[in-house]
């Protein structure tokens, strides 16, 4: 039974990967989500049929299914976000790392459990929760640091912008008027016109 499940998870990776490459550009993400949902149903049903035979086994299977799905979701969502240029590659690397670690947990539970128990002495469930939680903590911490840095840069740019605008105004006062709009008039003009729409 375990071999079957392992085969299934590996097959899933392949299928979703194939869909990823071959799928139509617009619907890739939605297609992957549907695929994940279908797989979840199948695994859930499989888990239900196993219930009668071995309860512990089913728990393990369900957990593997959930972690596997989670990892697929993380990987696909990350790739999709990078493709749509919503995420930069440097952040994507972090997320891909998380997705891969979770995937390893789903595919090789016995090996990872053995290793984790040797290192930390934790059970499988606790270990997975701790690993995922730890990674999420890392990511949010990383973002807090990054946001602070961005805030700093934004402040510097904003101040420079205001000082330069003032300088332009002064220079305009110094040279004879050429009938063009002054800096702050231009600014008001810019505010009143709607920003250009993003290219699709």
């Amino acid at each position: 039974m375990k071999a079957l499940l392992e085969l299934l998870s590996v097959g899933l990776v392949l299928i979703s990967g194939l869909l990823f490459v071959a799928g139509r550009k617009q619907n890739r993400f939605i297609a992957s989500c549907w695929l994940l949902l279908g797989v979840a149903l199948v695994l859930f049903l499989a888990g239900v049929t196993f219930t009668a035979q071995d309860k512990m086994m089913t728990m393990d299977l369900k957990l593997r299914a959930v972690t596997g799905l989670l990892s697929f979701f993380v990987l696909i969502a990350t790739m999709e976000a990078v493709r749509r240029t919503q995420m930069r590659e440097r952040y994507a690397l972090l997320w891909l790392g998380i997705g891969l670690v979770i995937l390893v947990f789903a595919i090789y539970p016995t090996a990872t459990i053995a290793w984790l128990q040797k290192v930390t002495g934790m059970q499988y469930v606790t270990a997975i929760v701790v690993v995922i939680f730890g990674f999420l903590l890392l990511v949010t911490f990383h973002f807090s640091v990054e946001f602070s840095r961005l805030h700093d840069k934004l402040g510097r740019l904003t101040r420079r912008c205001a000082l330069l605008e003032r300088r332009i105004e002064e220079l305009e006062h110094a040279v004879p008027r050429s009938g063009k709009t002054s800096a702050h008039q231009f600014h008001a003009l810019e505010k009143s016109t709607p920003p250009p729409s993003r290219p699709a």
Partner: protein
Amino acid sequence: MLAHSDPNRYSNARLMTEWIQESLLLIPAFNEEASLGALLDEVGTLFPALDVAVINDCSGDRTAHVARTHGVVVLDLPCNLGVGGVMQAGFEYACARDYRYVMRCDGDGQHPPSEIPKLAAAMQANNADVVIGSRFLGPHAYTSTPWRNVGIAGLAALLSYACRQRVTDPTSGFQLINRPALHFFAKTYPSDYPEPESLALLTRQGYRVCETAVDFRARQGGCSSIGKRAALFYAMKVTLALLVDRARAADPRFSRQNMLEQLAP
């Protein structure tokens, strides 16, 4: 180092005129169209020779327009940065124009510009780098809501310890700053709620800070940027900043001694 200052010390009118000519008044403004006009009129009649810069923190109202119609310099920030970023923009501007003294006065009219000579007198009397107008030192002690008073008292105690000198009004934005301190602030100034932290940074770098009694007025318009919940955040943020600043090494480039050497002709 408290200065119960006497404005008559600055009796030398010529000296005062010269002093005003090399000073800049910074007015941070966020949605202050209701009170800014009156303040600018008052400053204009009291000190016609004083340069004034209004820093508009991306207001939603006509603050920048009001300032422009009064003929003062307007620094128009394209994004809202909060008081810290606003003041740093003003300090950078003052540095670029090489002003010798910078005053800060809030746009809501709480800080009466007629008290500016008191600050100047205190700076001269105490040979201070930064003078703070304190609303708690004077005979007409200012009272606020009880919770806010408790917060300010706690902050004052903490800051007095951090600065190793008595500070009565840590949140006051009515300040006079000389050239070395100005250059220090232009390089590094705290972000949100900067006043208490900036004092701690100053004393740590060897700058001399003193307070002088000033009668504050009631707010002339607009509303406080610090609501009830924000006040709690304010207290916690400033406490954390004060503690962390102690644990951080002071940058020797910005020490008072170094600044004086750099600014010497």
